């Protein structure tokens, strides 16, 4: 349909040559992967931040080590390290137990790896945000007899989100762009689809630029969504006059 339209407009040079569905699938893969990784990393980030702020060193030291090590090493190196090692370790384990060979699903491995890496960045974001919630709020919540989980859910979380949102937005953008790297570990994402389409039609430039534009579309849409969220979570606070 899209191709017919282009033909009609005299723009058949921009035809997708039947690779439209492949590109769509790739885009869907990229979106799915980034959203699921976001979920994993936010959960890891909340756990990590709580561990980093906890009183006991048993929790604090591993969390500190996690954020320092992961944030100091490039994401692509970690991706290759974790992705390939996971498979090697699992093979070793299954051989030792004399089970059948299990192949890790690349998609699941991608989500786990990305989530694990960006969890470290989210830990730092959430830690800063939790520290920004005034102490009196926590004390008041305790005085009202709220339990630990209620305190987090009704008092800390809604307030820290306001401070965390700019950081979350930043991390999300970096993570979205990092998903372009998963084609290197063999996932059929948008970049892979664009490369395949480009190579078989000898129009690599066109399809790569198209992929870049799709990414631009996703990042722009996220920007708008984030601005909306920021406005929502800043309800009740006054912004400085400009």
């Amino acid at each position, binding site marked *: 349909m899209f191709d017919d339209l282009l033909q009609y407009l005299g723009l058949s040079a921009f035809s997708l040559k039947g690779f439209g569905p492949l590109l769509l699938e790739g885009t869907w893969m990229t979106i799915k992967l980034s959203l699921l990784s976001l979920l994993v990393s936010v959960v890891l980030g909340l756990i990590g931040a709580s561990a980093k702020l906890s009183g006991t060193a048993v929790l604090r030291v591993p969390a500190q080590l996690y954020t320092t090590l992961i944030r100091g090493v490039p994401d692509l*190196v*970690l991706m290759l*390290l974790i992705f*390939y090692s996971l498979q090697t370790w699992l093979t070793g384990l299954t051989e030792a137990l004399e089970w059948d060979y299990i192949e890790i699903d690349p998609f699941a491995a991608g989500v786990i790896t990305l989530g694990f890496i960006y969890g470290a960045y989210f830990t730092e974001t959430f830690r800063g945000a939790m520290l920004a919630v005034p102490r009196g709020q926590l004390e008041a919540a305790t005085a009202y007899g709220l339990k630990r989980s209620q305190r987090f859910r009704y008092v800390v979380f809604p307030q820290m989100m306001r401070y965390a949102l700019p950081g979350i937005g930043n991390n999300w953008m970096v993570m979205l762009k990092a998903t372009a790297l998963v084609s290197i570990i063999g996932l059929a994402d948008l*970049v892979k689809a664009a490369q395949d389409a*480009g190579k078989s039609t000898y129009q690599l430039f066109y399809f*790569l630029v198209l992929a*870049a534009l799709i*990414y631009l579309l996703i990042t722009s849409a996220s920007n708008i969504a984030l601005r909306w969220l920021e406005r929502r979570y800043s309800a009740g606070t006054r912004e400085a006059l400009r």
Partner: protein
Amino acid sequence: MIELLQEYWRPFLYSDGQNITGLAMTLWLLSAALVIGFVVSVPLSIARVSSRRWVRWPVQFYTYLFRGTPLYIQLLICYTGIYSLEAVRGQPLLNDFFRDAMNCTILAFALNTCAYTTEIFAGAIRSMNHGEVEAAKAYGLSGWKLYAYVIMPSALRRSLPYYSNEVILMLHSTTVAFTATIPDILKVARDANSATFLTFQSFGIAALIYLTITFALVGLFRLAERRWLAFLGPTH
């Protein structure tokens, strides 16, 4: 593990006998991209905060494009995309430039870091204390002198913490260079991995080298901040 180190420490650090590889290559890529990016981003950041729309908008469009798309795609476009065009291969000068993987990689990296750096510097210029500018104007400074003696020295200093972040992100981004056949640290690690099947060790060594560079850069920037941002610290 020992054998891996014995065989590969040289490629990991500086050379495989013929070419510069590993750490030396990564550092060269990083510094080339950063120097070009820095030099270009200073005038661009001034254009970015210009009150004239036709000066501001092209720069804004450029940073929007390059910050909104992944560096990996930018590199692919520079390295494989542009060279696949007939028009480029027809021109001897362009053909020579884009045939070389190193040129394409440095071009892509420099364009990318320049976009981020431009926004960092532009932000710093925008948050410039108004009184300082007024005072400078009262002393008769205007035009490029105002920028050269008052605005830029202050803006560049205040952007140091954000710039250090960008430098470290750029270091981490240089890892995609291996997809353009550049023999950086990660490429050596992949070669070591496929030759020895010691996956964890090969990539682990690469991770350790990157970690060391990151810590060294963080330390350097801390020193730089102590030197150039002393005026923002607590007064004694």
